[in-house]
């Protein structure tokens, strides 16, 4: 069944149809929430809250990209979480194992098809990117996450971020520059061919 039909049924109160939409979009939603909050536990809460909110707000969906509409709800919830955290800073940023030790490659980051070396490299790359993202202002972080990590086009990103197209362009350019400066600090951790030399041109 195509997405529009599912949306139509969901709007009539069909929870199963909505749950099909959840299955289609939950990975993107969780990724955006995780990249925004930098914390898996918060990202889970944000994602779940966003889906509940989306179900209740379906009547307000006016067509267009459902993904962009949904991610707008996720980003709102994520930004709310960041604001809440700013008021009451508490959470640890690194995932922990059963005995409280830091886990380099948590379950949601594991890929069963890769070697331990590849897994380690992937974990390091993930940590480097997340560390640099965390250093950006939320509005800038959001645009990088939506465009460069989630692959939304500028229009969708503008709809999700509730910002004009020109603002998205400008924020993205500046955020990329800051990410570039930050990622240079990780040098060897980045995969060969993606290392950003310290003696860059900027």
């Amino acid at each position: 069944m195509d997405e529009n039909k599912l949306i139509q049924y969901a709007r009539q109160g069909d929870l199963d149809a909505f749950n099909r939409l959840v299955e289609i979009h939950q990975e993107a939603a969780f990724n955006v929430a995780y990249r925004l909050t930098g914390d898996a536990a918060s990202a889970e809460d944000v994602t779940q809250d966003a889906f509940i909110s989306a179900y209740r707000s379906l009547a307000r969906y006016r067509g267009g990209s459902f993904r962009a509409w949904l991610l707008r709800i996720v980003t709102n919830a994520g930004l709310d979480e960041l604001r809440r955290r700013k008021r009451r800073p508490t959470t640890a940023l690194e995932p922990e194992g059963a005995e409280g030790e830091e886990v380099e490659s948590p379950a949601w980051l594991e890929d069963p098809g890769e070697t331990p070396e590849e897994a380690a490299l992937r974990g390091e790359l993930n940590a480097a990117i997340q560390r640099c993202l965390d250093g950006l202002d939320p509005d800038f972080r959001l645009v990088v996450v939506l465009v460069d990590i989630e692959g939304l086009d500028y229009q969708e990103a503008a709809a999700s971020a509730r910002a004009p197209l020109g603002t998205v362009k400008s924020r993205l350019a500046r955020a990329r520059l800051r990410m570039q400066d930050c990622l240079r600090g990780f040098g060897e951790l980045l995969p060969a061919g993606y290392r950003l030399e310290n003696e860059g041109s900027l």
Partner: protein
Amino acid sequence: MAAPISPHDLETLSAFLDNQLPGRERNRIQERLLAEPALKAALEDLRRTRAVLRRAPRLRAPRTFRLTAAMLQPGAAPNPWFATLRMASILATVALAVLVTGEVAAFRLRSIGLTFGAASPAYEEPAAAAQAPEAESLGATDTTTPLETGPAEGEMTLMAVTETPPALEAAAPAEGGAAADAAEPEEDPVFRTAEKAATPSALRLAQFGLAGLALVSGLAAWLLRRRRP
């Protein structure tokens, strides 16, 4: 180290990288890229940064986020009466505020009218003074042009409001005697409207009604909200 590029060039390069530049601007930046090595190097840096970000590991959802009926249960959905009562309370409060403000404004207008009445020969704004003869002549010849007769009508309204107390006094004996008929003000719709608006009992009734509605509906909405688990 190459010269730094401007924020505008950075933005243009970033949009160029994503193929988001309109044709003419795209051609212009392509020409500049051929001529300016620093710009080309900056573009290359941006391209590599974007490539790294695109390689950011895709995280699997740690669990399903499917909704269950329990998640949508109460607590959850607000009582439908809550929104209605809250809106009724808000609207009643706004209407009450408008009525009270209107009454105060009318009172002040009446006071100003009294002042005008007392000092009418002397009081004239320069602009009004310039227009007064014109307005008077228009009032005499053509009373159907609302824009042009505006000031004159305004003056009439003020005077009518000002004269309300004597007119009301005159209204009582008017039923009984011919002498009172002579004191009756001329039939003026504006005068009648002002007289009606000044009726205090209807206004008070409306104000009390709105205040009651605002209080009761607000209280009911608050109680409904408190009852939610």
